[in-house]
């Protein structure tokens, strides 16, 4: 799971709204451009922001491995499907066929040079679209996100729901492991048939905990006062303005070069 990494980097000190602006700019730019150079530029910008964020990249090795699998999958699928589209009118340089015979409905699945080129563009776009948004949960404490939602005038009960669900995630994993271990202790081998009792027990355990939580909210008189205050506050400062301007400049650079398809 992608979760908050405690640090005091410049990114951590920024207002979450400026990071959301950055994400929106990078995503818009990645969707609008089909240029290798511009997509590489976006990936490099995101990578630099990752470095500034002081996030231990080694910790996220599995995330990057999944990303690599997606890149390869994206390239392979587009290498086959891009030139197979009914509206495709360009050239078609076949490298090899995945299927030895022409299979009904799916055909022989030819891998083409044009498809591979498009696959590279598509994969780069997906990497850019995924790398930038990961910055927000990694560098923003959940309590700051709650403050953002409050500043956006979300109802208090919805904010409570989101806060509690975030708290419930590790608890659910913990309950899952406890139940699974209990199942393993009773049996030498556990199979698919054990999944339904596991789910049932997990549900009941989680819901019992939620009832206790609701009771503690009542005893603490949660929601008694209509106006809520917070020790922490968020402020869109000078650094946030600079970072937002930087984000718009990145978007502007990409937009100015959008016409150059395929670099």
């Amino acid at each position: 799971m992608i979760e908050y990494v405690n640090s005091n980097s410049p990114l951590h000190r920024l207002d979450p709204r400026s990071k959301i602006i950055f994400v929106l700019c990078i995503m818009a730019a990645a969707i609008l451009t089909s240029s290798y150079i511009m997509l590489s530029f976006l990936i490099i910008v995101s990578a630099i922001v990752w470095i500034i964020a002081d996030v231990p990249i080694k910790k996220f090795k599995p995330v990057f491995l999944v990303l690599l699998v997606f890149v390869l999958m994206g390239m392979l699928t587009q290498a086959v499907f891009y030139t197979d589209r009914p509206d495709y009118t360009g050239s078609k340089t076949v490298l090899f066929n995945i299927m030895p015979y022409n299979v009904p409905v799916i055909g022989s699945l030819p891998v083409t040079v044009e498809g591979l080129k498009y696959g590279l563009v598509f994969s780069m776009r997906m990497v850019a679209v995924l790398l930038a948004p990961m910055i927000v949960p990694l560098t923003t404490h959940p309590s700051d996100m709650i403050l953002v939602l409050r500043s956006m005038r979300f109802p208090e009960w919805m904010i409570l729901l989101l806060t509690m669900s975030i708290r419930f995630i590790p608890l659910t994993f913990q309950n899952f492991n406890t139940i699974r271990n209990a199942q393993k202790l009773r049996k030498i081998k556990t199979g698919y048939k054990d999944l339904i009792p596991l789910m049932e027990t997990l549900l009941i355990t989680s819901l019992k905990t939620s009832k206790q939580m609701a009771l503690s909210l009542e005893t603490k008189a949660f929601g008694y006062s209509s106006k809520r205050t917070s020790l922490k506050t968020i402020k869109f400062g000078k650094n946030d303005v600079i970072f937002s301007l930087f984000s718009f400049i990145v978007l502007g650079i990409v937009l100015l070069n959008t016409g150059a398809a395929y670099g």
Partner: protein
Amino acid sequence: MVKFDFTKRDIAMMAAFLALMMVAEAIWILGSVFAPFGIGIYYGAVLIIAAIVIGKRYTILTLGIAKTIIMLLIPDTYGGSLAAICYLIGAIVLESALYLSEPYAENLKTDLLGILGYGIIYWGVYAAILTMVYGMALPQWAIIIGFVVYPGSFLLGGFLGYKLGNKVKNVIESV
């Protein structure tokens, strides 16, 4: 005007269901071939159980909105933050179906119809985002397979959820 009338107990239970929906992302370790089946069954079951156990109108819509907000902040594995819209539109469809049943989510037929609609819309919107926004080339046969796999697995999950939901509701009310 939509009026959300939830008690603290309902909100706490919805948070538990939302967390159960969030941990579904771990199913992707099954691989891209089997994961859609697992995700569909699990999601379908959790949504219907949530509707039965909480038993109040707009439960699914609220879960859909909350899930969308979380997925906008923590992007989905494939499809980025934009894929979050699938959950919201799917929830609107399921909520519309459950809205017709009285008491809420207690009718098997409307539950299954709603969850089938959820599956169709979920895949439809997801495929539309991948092809129209990100420019992914997907052949027609792959889209059709998706329209069979996702609604089918959601339907199976919905049926399982209906069976489990009533059991869980009885247990929770007794403790």
